[in-house]
């Protein structure tokens, strides 16, 4: 047992000789671990957040599809749907987008159905009149608007319309409300140019989750031009989106990853004449092949474990304390109104274990493998020069 510690001692002494070089490798390696772990931690956290939040979404949304296009749906369809057994409620949704040429951003307009104007996550209240609106933090910041302020938005007939801001959404809801302008349902329909009696789509609430698919089938049968979207499809979409986004981020980083792999490969495999001679000396003074390989293994372990720990700590701080500033530009893409990220921590131990495994094992293998040949040569080669 003590033998292993002595070999570790020697490995550390050996690494200490090329202190600068080895610290440089640790720095690059740790940075790589930081970035990769940040991507995985962040996308995992947002995915989890989406899954938890969207549980509140309607069990079914029903769109109408005409010629492959998403088209308005008649409000009267709700009456038929509401009579289906198991349906609690069917409501029209009025929502759409407006492009704000002044700020070069796209804003999402949503009509709030009737109901209490008070909502905990709103400072102020939701609109009750056609001239009022509530805005998300991103829109408010863009317009410099507070409660009591005004915004001018361009409606479907390219006419500017003035609204009084009566509410702003609180920071914790940014990820849901950042680009929202909430109006009354009727005003939203008017603003979005929906003909009277037509809605963007329908939200259907269903009491028993087990019945959702049956009801979706029934709706599809009754209205063949409809496209019911279940909540589980919504959640699945977010799962896919974040896998795709993290894959894309990793793809963009792959240049760096490959550069690091080359560096590691070169460092670990490029057994210099000097190192070969050292192995010969060790063998000549009484180390066996196993001892030499153990030394190389420890050298790899020290470098990779140090990098792993530093990288993981940096990633956890970067994502959960600082809000992932290094990744936001990649994640936001072309988005103009991108919310400030406050990722809600969700750390999967399995994720940490796989990061650790992927960090340590390949590096150690790349360190030990090339020493093999030098380690098994007869020690007399060093004597004979």
């Amino acid at each position, binding site marked *: *047992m*003590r*033998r292993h510690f*002595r*070999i570790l*001692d*020697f490995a550390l*002494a*050996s690494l200490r*000789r*090329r202190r600068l070089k080895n610290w440089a490798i640790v720095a690059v390696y740790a940075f790589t671990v930081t970035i990769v772990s940040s991507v995985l931690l962040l996308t995992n956290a947002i995915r989890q957040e989406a899954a938890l939040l969207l549980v509140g979404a309607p069990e079914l949304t029903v769109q109408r599809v005409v010629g492959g296009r998403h088209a308005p749906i008649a409000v009267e369809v709700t009456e038929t749907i509401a009579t289906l057994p198991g349906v609690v409620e069917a409501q029209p949704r009025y929502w759409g987008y407006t492009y704000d040429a002044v700020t070069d951003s796209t804003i999402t307009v949503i009509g709030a159905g009737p109901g209490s104007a008070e909502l905990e996550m709103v400072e102020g209240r939701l609109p009750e009149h056609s001239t009022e609106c509530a805005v998300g933090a991103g829109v408010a910041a863009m317009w410099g608007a507070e409660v009591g302020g005004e915004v001018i938005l361009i409606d479907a007939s390219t006419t500017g319309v003035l609204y009084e801001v009566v509410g702003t959404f609180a920071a914790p809801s940014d990820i849901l409300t950042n680009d929202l302008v909430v109006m009354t349902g009727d005003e939203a329909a008017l603003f979005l140019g929906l003909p009277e009696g037509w809605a963007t789509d329908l939200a259907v609430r269903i009491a028993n989750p087990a019945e959702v698919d049956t009801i979706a089938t029934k709706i599809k049968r009754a209205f063949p031009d409809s496209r019911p979207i279940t909540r589980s499809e919504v959640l699945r979409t977010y799962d896919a989106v974040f896998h795709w986004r993290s894959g894309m981020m990793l793809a963009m980083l792959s240049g760096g990853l490959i550069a690091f792999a080359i560096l590691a490969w070169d460092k670990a495999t490029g057994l210099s004449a000097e190192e070969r*001679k*050292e192995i*010969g*000396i*060790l*063998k*000549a*003074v*009484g*180390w*066996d*092949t*196993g*001892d030499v390989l153990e030394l190389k293994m420890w050298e790899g372990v020290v470098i990779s474990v140090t990098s792993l720990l530093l990288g993981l700590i940096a990633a956890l701080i970067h994502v959960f304390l600082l809000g992932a500033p290094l990744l936001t530009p990649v994640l936001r893409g072309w988005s103009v109104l991108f919310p400030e990220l406050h990722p809600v921590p969700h750390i999967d131990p399995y994720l940490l274990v796989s990061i650790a495994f992927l960090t340590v094992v390949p590096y150690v293998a790349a360190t030990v493998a090339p020493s093999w040949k030098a380690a098994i040569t*007869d*020690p*007399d080669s*060093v*004597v*004979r*020069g």
Partner: protein
Amino acid sequence: MTSGANPLVSVDDVTKTYNRGAPDEVRAVRGVSTSVSAGEVLVLEGPSGSGKTSLLTMIGCMSRPTSGQVAVDGRRVSRLSEVALTSIRRSTFGFIFQHLHLIPNLSVEDNIMIPMVPTGLSPVEMKQRVQRVLAEMHLEHRRTALAGRISGGEQQRTAVARALVNRPSIVIADEPTAHLDSELSSELLEIFADLNARGTTVIIATHDPRVIDHPIVHRRLLLRDGEVVGEHAP
């Protein structure tokens, strides 16, 4: 052959062939038999290429003979596993190489510790042993200096200290004076004399007359082209 009843090392009709079967085959040692008794100072004498280094590495359990037998302390080493061979090498032999083979960017202390690392001694014991050989070699003031940054004589003594740290019963030296001036050579021979006085067996391969003619040498084995051509016991 002069040998005691129980020789420490016995070499029996040993040959060593490198690159066997290849066009550049070298028959470095051809049927050498001899023995070394405990407490002896033996010199393997001969020009370069005479096979003395090859014989030395076989005696020192660094390589196995192509044919024939080497026995150390009565154990036949030819058939031993690598691990067992290494363990004998570590516990029985101390090596001083022609080019010293110190690791230049490690400290004197770390260099001396190398042979002890795989033995699994406690750190305290290791420190004590290093301290002792440093004192014997008058190197205490150089303990933390890098081996590549000390004088040639100090490097020589560091190499000797490393050879002695596992308390070997046999010290093997390959052309130890090849790169030393007269003063350092005689200093080294004094060290060998001292070791021998305390019962350590010393085997030296050399063609340096300063060593060959030194009074500490008990016996000389003359090698030419891998064969023993003469033996002198002054």
